[in-house]
């Protein structure tokens, strides 16, 4: 099951973050189990440690890499980080994160929109991490973002989709793909996001900090697919009262 963002076909509606894995050696089996459409990395100052291993593992899996601007707290920082990522990794795609504080890790809407506008004008394919606010999502689409990525719950919380009505409102308010980002804790959260109309789900710590990351990667892959199929199947309306499924005629009285 594929989807298209900015004209590029992606192999799966499950995107995977790589942060939090206890060992880099787990990355390849996790990527194999998840079969993700994109895989995110961060950009940081080099230390004496040689760069390498991470990108080699992703390249061997054949998954397109999506650099993020995680940790940036201003448009200026995020724009420079995105430009460095483009130079280092050879991709103009960026998961744009501009957070407002280090406790909530909530997006800073003002800085986010400014950074998105600058990066789109600079030729980037911008996928912004945003709040579950349909108005901000539309503003991000208006400045040219290729998708919007509302949070289901705070980063790393594993609380799932806390406000499903808001996610549905975001889906209804934009025509670009909606990627649920942040909050996923387990497979049912991913399935639920897809049932709500999201086009994809990005999960990081749900997999990387699970007791068995490889098994959770496979579970999320199946969850996303199940949710997408269920969305297409058309769920029954919710009712406040019971409605028998067995015939009411011919009962033995």
């Amino acid at each position, binding site marked *: 099951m594929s989807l298209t963002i900015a004209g590029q076909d992606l192999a799966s509606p499950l995107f995977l*973050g*790589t*942060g*939090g*894995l206890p060992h*880099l050696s787990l*990355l390849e089996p996790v990527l194999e189990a998840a079969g993700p459409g994109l895989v*995110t*990395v*961060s*950009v*940081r*100052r*080099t230390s004496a440690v*040689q*760069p*390498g291993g*991470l*990108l080699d593992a992703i390249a061997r899996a054949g998954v397109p*890499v999506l*650099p*993020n601007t*995680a940790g940036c707290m201003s448009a*200026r920082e995020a724009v*420079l*980080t995105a*430009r*460095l*990522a*483009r*130079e*280092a*990794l050879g991709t103009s795609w960026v998961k744009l994160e501009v957070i407002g504080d280090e406790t909530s890790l909530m997006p800073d809407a003002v800085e986010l929109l400014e950074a998105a506008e600058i990066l789109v004008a600079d030729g980037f394919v911008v996928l912004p991490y945003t709040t579950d606010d349909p108005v901000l999502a539309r503003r991000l689409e208006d400045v040219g973002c290729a998708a919007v990525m509302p949070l289901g719950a705070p*980063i*790393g919380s594993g609380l799932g989709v806390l406000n499903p009505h808001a996610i549905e409102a975001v889906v209804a308010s934009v025509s670009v793909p909606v990627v649920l980002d942040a909050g996923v804790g387990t497979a049912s959260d991913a399935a639920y996001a897809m049932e709500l109309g999201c086009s994809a789900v*990005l999960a*990081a*710590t749900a997999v990387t900090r699970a007791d068995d990351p490889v098994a959770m990667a496979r579970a999320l892959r199946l969850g996303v697919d199940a949710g997408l199929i269920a969305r297409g199947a058309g769920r029954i309306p919710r009712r406040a009262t019971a409605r028998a499924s067995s015939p009411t005629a011919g009962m033995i009285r």
Partner: protein
Amino acid sequence: MRIILNGAPVEGAPTVADLVEHHLGRREPAGVAVALNDAVVPRGEWGTQPLRDGDVVEVVTAVQGG
């Protein structure tokens, strides 16, 4: 000449390429990008981009991240 490399003062080098080689042990390491005073220096210009006293240089690479 003193410059700021990744937030710390260090002895400078004639060009960006020389600095990268001294810092990372290789002249053209894969997956690395350089910013000089908040502007990206394309890899093809590392060898000709001179450094000056007080320059602020960032050398970055990809790491695991959500």
